[in-house]
């Protein structure tokens, strides 16, 4: 009976029953053992049946809702809780109330690293059972555009066009004239600065830096050293949302040439931006800076919120986080400085709603997408998340009277978006690593950016050839 004793500890009742049955006894011969064997398989399949029974009840529950004559639309998104989760829930509720023919069922799909839910989408599309609608980061869609329904015809039929949206929103949802999805929202970046630190350092808290050289000068004044150690940084170019994209555009560079369809990450102005970013680190001591940035870690441990960093480039969502973690922080928001102190811009991201290829209820899916992305009702709900609507008129309504959003609303129309290319994710990864590679002496800014440009362009060529 040693076996049953041992299994008590693990509480595997199922296995225990089975083992007892099989304990048969020593003198038993062939035949009986074979029956034992078959009883074991019966028992095994019995346990499978349990599982399928419980799943069956699950199915019948969900199928009850389809018994009403509404068409069910499955909508994948990756926000379960928090303001974004609430806004999704609310939007779906409003939509379901607004008409009688369609019922949208939202399904939370966890991201598999980063912002993407592509592993689930890809497996589902490959097996032929995709969702009807999915929320996706706009810049990456072109890379899997074979999996989405091109929406040009539907948009044209229903008079939905570029004029309703910001230029960046519509363009980032379009590849080579093909509409991959409808733009849903936008995120933008600006310079956040600590007004108390400005006062301490003898700077005017109402006059944030406008040019790159002013930014450098202020950064030096705001940095505090104690016993040779830097205890507070004035500014670190790539900390937060200071990506190479952010600075490349601030320096007047371009990452993509529409005429030739080539990536231009080695544009002289982008090289200049990268050189500036990294030489900035050298001024403060590379070790000091890397110590600081690797100490700072993820967004929630933000050194700007805790007062260890005086200025940082970050997104509009930081407003809500400051409110949560340090509501007393006395801060201001300004333009991302540029070389000439004029022509301010911002790097804009955001999502689109896409309809995967091969969905059964294309019309109904489209009705939902259209409502989410164009109706004032749905777009106004973006206020819950603190992000921007893809439509200028809606933003003016929901954020027009909020002074913190003033700068954002001003630069949004000039916003720049990442190029829509077949290797958008790879380009993002490569560019994000570039400052780190330069700092660690893997090459000069020019060399690194030349390599990246070649790599992305040849990657795009390879992908095009197969199409």
């Amino acid at each position, binding site marked *: 009976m040693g076996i049953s004793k041992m299994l008590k500890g693990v509480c595997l009742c199922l296995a225990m029953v089975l083992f007892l049955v099989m304990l048969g006894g020593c003198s038993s011969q062939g035949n009986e053992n074979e029956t034992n064997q078959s009883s074991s398989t019966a028992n095994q399949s019995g346990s499978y049946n349990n599982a399928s029974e419980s799943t069956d009840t699950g199915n019948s529950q969900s199928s009850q809702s389809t018994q009403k004559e509404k068409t069910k639309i499955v909508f994948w998104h990756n926000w379960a809780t928090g303001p974004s989760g609430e806004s999704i829930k609310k939007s779906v509720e409003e939509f379901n109330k607004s008409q009688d023919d369609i019922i949208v069922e939202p399904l939370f799909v966890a991201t598999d690293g980063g912002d993407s839910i592509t592993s689930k989408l*890809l497996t589902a599309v490959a097996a032929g059972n995709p969702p009807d609608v999915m929320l996706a980061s706009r810049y990456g869609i072109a890379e899997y555009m074979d999996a989405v329904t091109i929406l040009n015809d539907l948009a044209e039929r229903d008079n939905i066009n570029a004029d309703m949206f910001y230029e960046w929103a519509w363009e980032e949802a379009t590849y080579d004239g093909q509409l991959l999805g409808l733009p849903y929202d936008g995120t933008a970046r600006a310079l956040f600065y600590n007004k108390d630190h400005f006062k301490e350092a003898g700077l005017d808290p109402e006059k944030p830096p406008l040019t790159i050289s002013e930014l450098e000068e202020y950064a030096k004044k705001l940095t505090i050293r104690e016993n040779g150690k830097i205890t507070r940084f004035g500014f670190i170019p790539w900390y937060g949302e200071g990506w190479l994209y952010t600075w490349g555009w601030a320096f007047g560079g371009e990452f993509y040439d529409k005429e030739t369809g080539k990536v231009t990450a080695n544009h002289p102005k982008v090289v200049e931006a990268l050189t500036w970013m990294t030489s900035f680190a050298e001024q403060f001591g590379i*070790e000091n800076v890397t*110590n600081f940035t690797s*100490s700072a870690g993820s967004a929630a441990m933000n050194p700007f919120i805790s007062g260890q960093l005086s200025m940082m480039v970050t997104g509009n969502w930081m407003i809500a986080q400051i409110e949560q973690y340090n509501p007393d922080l006395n801060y201001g928001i300004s333009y991302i400085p540029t070389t000439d102190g004029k022509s301010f811009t911002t790097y804009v991201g955001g999502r689109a709603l896409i309809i995967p290829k091969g969905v059964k209820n294309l019309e109904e899916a489209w009705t939902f997408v259209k409502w989410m992305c164009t109706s004032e009702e749905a777009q106004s709900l973006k206020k819950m998340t603190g992000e921007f609507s893809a439509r200028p008129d809606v933003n003016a309504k929901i954020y027009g009277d909020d002074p913190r959003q003033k700068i954002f609303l001003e630069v949004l129309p000039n916003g720049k978006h990442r190029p829509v290319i077949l290797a958008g*994710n*790879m380009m993002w990864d490569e560019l994000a*690593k570039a400052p780190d590679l330069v700092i660690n002496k893997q090459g000069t800014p020019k060399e690194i950016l030349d390599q990246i440009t070649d790599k992305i362009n040849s990657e795009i060529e390879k992908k095009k050839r197969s199409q």
Partner: protein
Amino acid sequence: MFSARTIAGIRPRMVWKRRGIESRRAKYGYIFALPWMTGLLFFYAYPLLSSIYYSFTKYNVISPVEWVGLNNYKELFNDPLFWTGIKNTLYYALFAVPISVVLGISLALLLNMPIRWRSFFRTVFFIPTLVPVVATAIIWQWLLNPQFGLINHLLETIGIGGPPWLGDPKWSKPSLILMAQWGIGNSVIIYLAGLQDISKDYDDAARVDGASGLRKVWHITLPLLTPVIFFNMIMGIINALQVFTLPYALTYGTGNPANSLLFYSMHLYNNAFLYMKMGYASAMAWILFIVIMTITLLLFRSSSRWVYYHGDQ
């Protein structure tokens, strides 16, 4: 039920009969292995074979597959990140595996001693494997924080200026190897299970011979534990060469600083699911497969010299 003495008495009579029994038993070999062979066919063979096929194609999961011959493999050899991944992964495996074998056996031996609170101690060393990886990554970032981390703080009190750990490409891999030892609980369990199986008779015999503690461990316990050590080494190598979760969570998939934490599987994953190059990723998987297989086979070759199976005598 069967004492060692009666068994010893029966043995000589049995030897001549064995051959006939073996051939009759062969049938049961198949019967016992049948469930697994079925599973192998269903859940492993097809996915494996298709991944070989895909490694010779351009395949993004969605569009039709296009045969490209050896192009993926050729392209791989020209991909600097492929070589970076190999270099980093081999470096990691070379240090992480031996360290974890030595540490694992030592811990298991200690935890097998007749001590008080044994259950408690055994649980303690297992617990880190249950902390979600994101939490593990975060707490290590704190402990190894160059400015206010606990470890550098301790080093400072004895007058050593601590390195930037994860911030410096020279220190990042050693840091990760250190972190990985936290997850050693799983192999400790297997060593413990192995120690349980080593018959108490041997202990008694050794005691009669008057062997001291350490000598007993070295001459009796360790040789008997070799099948388990062998198992853990092979699994350690397979896992080390596929290392993914911790560095991925730690660097958000980037492999920073300066690609020093970009491991082979991370590059593979990015190609498969971010860059939509499933064919390329499959080729990567097969190269990794060949590397692991070669190392494993070499180890198996060597095993007859140092792994001792009781049942084989």
